[in-house]
Every structure is written in C-alpha cells, then in structure tokens.
C-alpha cells in the first residue's frame, strides 16, 4: 500500500488515489492535423520506462485534484509530487 504525497492534502494511503497514466502527454491542440501514426502515439504508445517516471494521479477520495508525481518503477519510491502545469523536478541521482 503506497503512501502518496498529495500536493494539497499531504501524505495519504494509496486507497484514496487513482493512477491516471503517464504525465506530460499533453493532448495535441489540433488533432485534425496529425497523421494516424502521430495520433496513435498519443493514444496508445507509452514509454513504460523502468526507472524514474513522471505520471499522473488523482486524489479521487480526497481533494479531488489531479497532480503529477515522480516515481521509480522498480522501487516504487516517490521522489516528488507536483501540481499540474508546474515544471517537473529532475529525478534524484
């Protein structure tokens, strides 16, 4: 059971959160101009990296806010939680 830091509510049990996929996949502003392959990149292709990843969470049974977090997908350690739109911090060494 992860302990996740919500930027507004502080540390809460994973039960209150919902994982919402990789972060910084901004929805293209004008999808009509994209090729099918580019649109598929946005829809289905993912880094799926083993290491520090930037991902989205929502404190769904809490303040209800979406936010981003930096987590290591081998150790499941969180390095940081940061609000949507804020610059993402560099992963620790």
């Amino acid at each position: 059971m992860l302990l996740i830091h919500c930027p507004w509510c502080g540390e809460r049990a994973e039960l209150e959160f919902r994982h919402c996929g990789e972060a910084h996949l901004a929805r293209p502003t004008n999808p009509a101009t994209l090729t099918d392959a580019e649109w598929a990149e946005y829809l289905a292709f993912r880094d799926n990296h083993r290491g520090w990843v930037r991902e989205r969470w929502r404190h769904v049974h809490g303040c209800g806010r979406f936010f981003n977090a930096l987590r290591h997908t081998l150790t499941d350690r969180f390095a940081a939680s940061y609000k949507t739109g804020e610059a993402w911090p560099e992963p620790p060494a």
Partner: protein
Amino acid sequence: MVELREMPPLRCTLLQAAAEVAATLGHALPAPLTATGTMLWLGPEEWLLLDEPGVPQGPASLVDVSDRYRGLVLHGAGAAEALNEGCPLDLADAAFPPSSCTRTLFGKAEIILWRPAANEWRILVGRSFAPYLLALLREVLDDLPPG
C-alpha cells in the same frame, strides 16, 4: 463506549470558486483540511456550505446538494479506533486535531470526515451508501473491546 446516531437532514451547498471569490460570500474561509461551524474545506477551490450561501462577487459555482449526503455522528473516546476499522487515516490528535475535515474512505464508501470537537466525529456519506455505512459501523461497535 462509543455512541452512534444520525444527524438531522442537512441543508448544504457545494461551492467551487477561486478563494478570493469564495471569501466574498461573507463566511470566514476555513484553512485547508479544516472546517468552521458552517463551512467545510473539501479541496482547493471547493467547500461545502452548511447554511444559506449568499451571492458571490465573481465567477463561482453554487449547487444545492442538500439531499446528497446523510450525516452520522460518532461520540466517545473509542470513536477514533472504530473509525480506523475502515478509514486509513491517522486520527490521533496530532495528525487529525479537532476542527479537522477531509474526504476519505470508510470501507468501500467515500465519506467526508469532520471532527468538530475532540470526542465528536461527524461523517457525511452519499445518501445511498448510508445503509451500508450504518450496518458496518454497528458491527464494528459491537466488537470494540469494552472500556
């Protein structure tokens, strides 16, 4: 011993707005994760008003949600232990002091947990989840060790 009772029907409005607009409603804004007598902080730019909302000066959302919740009250020294049967929060005085308020979980129901006083815990739960929550809490209270 811990006593469980239902609250009378609520009169409440869900307010969403920038803090400065919310402040124009004439209520003292509660700090994050706390509640005043009439206003519960639920999230950044989100509050539950327990009485007449008034008119905000600026873009805001006011929605009557009076019948959305039913209220329960747990009273007594063992209330925190009973709540920790289904709620993962640290409810010790240091972590959840009186006037604390937040959305969280009890078992499989989402609740608003509000601690207006040291030994008084109020739970607001979605109307259709109230029977489940009451039955679960009653079983918990039956099993609490006496004293």
